[in-house]
């Protein structure tokens, strides 16, 4: 297992290095970064000064190494727009998104596991049909619309939840539900199909023949083996939610990482884009890394193969 973790860690670091090269190259291909970083009113002297400050008069490989070492230290420079260190903006927004997604994740899994199991075990019945309708709706209704509807119902009509902010647990209910619904639908559908495969397998038949209780067959044998694909999907999806929950963050004025990334792009805030993309990459890679470890824990065959 240790060897497996070390190998996956090295792979993650290599992927991040490749990502850093891609960002470094793309930024230089898309234009002169100094021109992008300087204010519109800068002079020629300002240009030369910033060029030397950023080390852009040095050979390209040296420039890359400087960029890389600064990034490792968390130094992405200052935002063009706000003059605020990029790392500070990331530090302020990323935890907000992680908190929100964690709650969404709990909601999503708490609903999807029983839903997926019921749908699989009661295949073809009214329960299965209901579960399919619910998951279908959850995936097809736009998150943005769900958010606005929740606002209308729980804020305007019932007046039991706050419209925006993130100070109390009540603030988490609507945005996390919004994100959780989509996750729930995906996981429940995946779990259903995976469970159906497992329930049809020889070892489950054997367990039943041996007289193992049905609840043990479902919860111990079938569920554990069905969770592999769910873990893989969930791990990937959690990273996507952290970095890309922009619609939900917009509706609920949630000061998260998605809105920061959006602001960086629409404002062409080059240092912020660089910081945000690398951080998003690191989040996705980390999620993958931990998912793989969990995967190996759940499925001993992977450890053996390594």
């Amino acid at each position, binding site marked *: 297992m240790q060897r497996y973790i070390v190998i996956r860690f090295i792979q993650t670091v290599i992927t991040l290095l490749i990502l850093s090269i891609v960002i470094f190259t793309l930024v230089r291909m898309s234009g002169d970064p100094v021109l992008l970083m300087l204010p519109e009113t800068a002079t020629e002297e300002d240009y030369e000064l910033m060029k030397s400050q950023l080390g852009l008069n040095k050979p390209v490989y040296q420039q890359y190494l400087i960029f890389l070492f600064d990034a490792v230290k968390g130094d992405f420079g200052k935002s063009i727009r706000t003059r605020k260190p990029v790392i500070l903006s990331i530090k302020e927004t990323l935890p907000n998104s992680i908190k929100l997604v964690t709650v969404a994740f709990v909601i999503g899994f708490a609903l999807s596991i029983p839903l997926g199991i019921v749908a699989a075990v009661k295949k073809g019945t009214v329960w299965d049909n209901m579960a399919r309708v619910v998951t279908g709706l959850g995936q097809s209704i736009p998150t943005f619309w769900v958010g606005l509807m929740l606002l*209308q119902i729980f804020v305007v009509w019932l007046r039991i939840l706050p419209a925006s902010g993130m100070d109390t647990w009540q603030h988490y209910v609507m945005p996390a539900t919004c994100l959780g619904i989509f996750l729930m639908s995906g996981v429940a559908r995946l779990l259903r199909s995976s469970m159906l495969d497992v329930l049809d397998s020889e070892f489950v038949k054997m367990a039943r023949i041996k007289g193992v209780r049905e609840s043990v067959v479902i919860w111990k044998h079938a569920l554990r083996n069905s969770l592999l694909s769910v873990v893989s999907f969930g791990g990937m999806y959690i990273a996507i939610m952290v970095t890309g929950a922009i619609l939900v963050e917009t509706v609920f004025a949630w000061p998260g990482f998605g809105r920061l990334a959006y602001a960086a792009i629409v404002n062409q805030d080059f240092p912020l884009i660089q910081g945000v993309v690398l951080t998003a990459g690191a989040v996705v890679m980390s999620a993958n890394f931990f998912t793989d470890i969990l995967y190996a824990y759940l499925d001993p065959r992977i450890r053996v193969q390594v």
Partner: protein
Amino acid sequence: MRKTASILALVISLMLLFNTSACFANEPSGELKIGLPTLYDQTFHPIWGTLYRRQYMEPMYDYIIGVDADGKYVSEQSVAYKWERTDDLLTWTFYIRKGIKFHNGDDLTNEDVRYTLEQAATKKNNAGSQSDFMEHIAKVETMAPDKVVVSLKKPWPTFINALTALNGAEGLIQPKKYIEEKGDDYFMSHPVGSGPYKFFEWKEGVHVKFVAQDTHWRVGTPKYKYLTFQLMPEEGSRDAALRVGELDIISVGMDRSKRLKKDGFVLQEKKDGLYVGLMWIQQFQSDFPINNKKVREALVYAIDKKTIVDYILAGSGRVVGTATSMFTWAIEYKPYPHTPYDPEKAKQLLTEAGFPKGFTMYLYSFVTKLPETKLINEAIASYWEAVGVKTKLLEMDYSAFKPVWTKKAEPPGPAAFILAWPNRPVYSWRHMYASDALYSHTKDPVMDQLIGDFESETSSEGYIEGARKIMDYVLENAYATGICTTHELHAMSKDVPVWEMGKGVGSYRWEYIGK
């Protein structure tokens, strides 16, 4: 004995109660929360960043020249309690009020006013009127402890106006000592002003919060202790937050405002607050079809301005014939008939210009002050498509568009943009049309001459006449076209007293609520 003691206790209680009430009446209390769709750059340096930041930045500063709600200069609200000018309009003297302090405790002196004016005349000034200040200001001197003398290179009849809320943010006084000690970068996020509200907190992407001074020389005691500008991009969310009392005032579009009014909320209208106009990007480039006057005229004829006002703006506004902000507040201006909607004439002009099959046009689409701007852009794109001009919308944020407007970034081809900006009583022709101005996309020696003549006028009649000549020339050449003026809408709870938003550009006089 017991009865006497009870009466005495009652009297003392009443005295204490009245005393406490009187005491509270003289202190700001509570919090006013204002929900806005954008906080723009979220920086607080008066002249570093977009002018529109003034929407939340203004209560923190004082102007060199103050104006009342009608847009009239008022010395009682000006840091300069008196000002004089020579007959040739080349020397202006300002007398600076004593006893004003910045929020960090430093005295506001004539050195701060000098610094503010000098900074406005540098390339650092990004607040809107850089070229006017650079073009005119020759020297700023502090002659006596309360005196600032400004020498101009050439007459500038509306110089005073440029130092007020009726123009840009250049008149907001910056603390020289503080900025020199801490640097501009630090000042941007740790601002110090001398206004009725001082900076309290900035949470990026969340809110900007100010706290009231107990008393202020210009405003007296502000009604609200805290003034919070909450960033809430989605209008539906702002609406919900207003309805449940999380926000007190929200910026709102025409459509939703009607529903809110019906549901008992108060609409605060800045009447004719916005001018919506169409301008070209790099029309001077000879290989761009919009370099051709007939093409520009065709594109103007193709737009159904009345339908835009009637349907997109729900009738809240009027079509205008001028090609710039309306001169309705400070300078009397003749009414211009607007260009009629005539798609057939547009097609004919395109054919005459050598583009019978049209061409590809780009339309930058961003929102500044008017939420409906994107819908207007979509309508204009469809009108142009209808006369054969393929139109691609380029969606972006205003900040991202600005390098294109200032010619620091190239457009992908012939392009235009719709800007909804605050109507202003004095318009900077140089700023928009002079060949060498930062925001100008016109290179026309005749126009430069007209602007030069206009700027050398010293009489008000000559000044108005000069402005009219430029306006006629702009319209004759279709260098720009106005779409309409419209009202800026805010919906608010009944608990907030109605106040005069004034006629300032992007200025809302929040500090005067309840005064």
